């Protein structure tokens, strides 16, 4: 093989080893799906489809998909979801799900057992933080995974436009003490994420360490417990979803009209750089982050 050919092949894998291309969906698990649905609708999502075999609903606004999963015992022996919703999975768009999955397993990722019913998609996944799963999806251009596993809700616009926000900005992940290096290594080694320098910050909650996806389409923010707060839980999890807005004050106004409340305290308030909603149902909050319009 000529040198030129090797270079040609090596170029992309080095920078984006699994061909990451953004977030396909974010999944919440809860035993109170209707209550979470009301919160999601307030933030602009609309229910558009129902899973064919399980108690799972697909919500959508613009390009963003959110799945609410209330089904218990997907895998034998697993418990029913708790009442307080938690982000139980993210699905990432990749160039080739099988190749990405095998590459990750080869490097020590922990596979999620597949549990598709007949005629459903077998979506490969690996273990992420605190029992959350990271799924890999490569069929998002030519057809939608939801066309297979979900049935449309009749009379509902399947592609409702986004309200106030432009798309997923990323996820905030809470991690245990002294675990930043471990998780940086995890996302870098398995998916090619890049750590951003401390001076590069977005939004109004700049704590922790920020990573950019190799596709440049979303961010992960790793936050260790505050050493001054003894009572903070060391539970690791995806704590909240970041939504990108080109005009945060306008988005805040629009969402307030819909009933969303934002945190206003001495240290934290909605401003041009970003805003934080209050926590709904004990655990669900959204962060608006200013993004330049492409």
């Amino acid at each position, binding site marked *: 093989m000529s040198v030129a050919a090797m270079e040609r092949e090596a170029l992309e894998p080095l920078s984006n080893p699994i061909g990451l291309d953004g977030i396909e969906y974010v999944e919440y698990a809860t035993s109170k799906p209707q209550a979470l649905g009301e919160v999601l609708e307030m933030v602009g999502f609309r229910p558009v489809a129902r899973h064919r075999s399980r108690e799972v609903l697909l919500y959508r606004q613009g390009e963003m998909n959110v799945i609410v999963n209330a089904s218990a015992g997907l895998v034998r022996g697993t418990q029913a979801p708790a009442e307080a919703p938690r982000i139980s999975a993210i699905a990432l768009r990749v160039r080739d799900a099988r190749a990405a999955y095998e590459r990750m397993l*080869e*490097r*020590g*990722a*922990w596979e999620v057992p597949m549990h598709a019913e007949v005629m459903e998609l077998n979506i490969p996944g690996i*273990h*992420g*933080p605190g029992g959350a799963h990271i799924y890999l999806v490569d069929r998002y251009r030519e057809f939608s995974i939801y066309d297979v596993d979900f049935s449309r809700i009749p009379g509902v616009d399947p592609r409702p436009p986004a309200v106030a926000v432009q798309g997923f900005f990323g996820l905030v992940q809470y991690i*245990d003490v002294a*675990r930043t*290096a*471990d*998780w*940086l*290594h*995890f996302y870098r*080694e*398995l998916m090619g994420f890049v750590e951003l320098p401390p001076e590069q910050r977005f939004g109004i909650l700049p704590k922790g360490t920020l990573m950019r996806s190799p596709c440049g389409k979303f961010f992960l923010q790793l936050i260790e417990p505050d*050493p*001054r707060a003894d009572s903070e839980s060391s539970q*690791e999890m995806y704590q909240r979803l970041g939504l990108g807005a080109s005009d945060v004050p306008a988005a805040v106004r629009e969402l307030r009209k819909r009933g969303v409340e934002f945190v206003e305290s001495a240290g934290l308030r909605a401003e041009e750089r970003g805003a934080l909603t209050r926590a709904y149902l004990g655990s669900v909050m959204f962060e608006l982050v200013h993004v330049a319009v492409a």
Partner: protein
Amino acid sequence: MKIDEFGMDTISFAGTLESKLQAITAAGFSQVMLSARDLVGHPGGVDAAAAAVRDSGLRVTGFQVLRDFEGLSGHLHQYKLDIAKSMIEMCAALGCKVMLACSSTSVHATEDPGKLAQDLRKLAMLAIPHGIRIAFEALSWGRSVNEFTQAWELVCEADCPNLGLGLDSFHVFAAKTALDHIDDLDPERIFLVQLSDFMWQETRSFEERIATARHFRVFPGEGVHSEQLASLVTRLDRLGYRGDYSFEVFNDDYQQLPLDTVARRASRSALWLAEDVLRRSTPLPSRMVLRPNAGGTPAVELR
């Protein structure tokens, strides 16, 4: 307080898990090193064993031991991968943050350092979602890694934040590795130190090392390497190591003594190390933390 840095290992005792934990607590220790057998051999199963450990109030120093992981290929590698995952799950069930993996003795394992490092990297990655650190230890009869200097080279080559070194004084003395090499280690990457001694100077063959390691170890201060053991511990202390020391004492005689007799011997050993070797007569500076109080001024607290 004085012996907080030191812990006992359940392998030093006969009896049930509960009676071992009780003896360790009664002797004044605050931590325990556990073996997978403590969990799977418990009559109530793994969950009951984990509950007994939690109820004891003892902190779990580490969980042992994953053997012969690195260097295998094909179906052997897949098999060991499954074993490693089960061990990691048990370690996590205990709330334990350190799992010990010892260097391979397998004749089926490659000696290629690149492949060995790659496998350790994979093992460390498996442990990340569970919040577990892997301490890699050189067995003195390991096939291609039998001195801590070689284990350290692999740890550096693999270069993962949750992969570090497990140092066992027995293997250091058995292999006669020069203690000067301790000064080359990064104290932050030493995840566990196990201490024990034995009663003779020479263990030339691998067979002799294995027999000594599994049947004739004694507590620090009871063997013939007290001077080297004191040197090892003071070197680690000077290097900046502030992690745990666990007594890794396999001894057939101790297996037929009352548990409190064995625990008393361990306690005497810990006091020797704390008072005479490390001179810890006052609370350790490393156990004091500066943290701002409500007024914003720093206050010194004891952990």
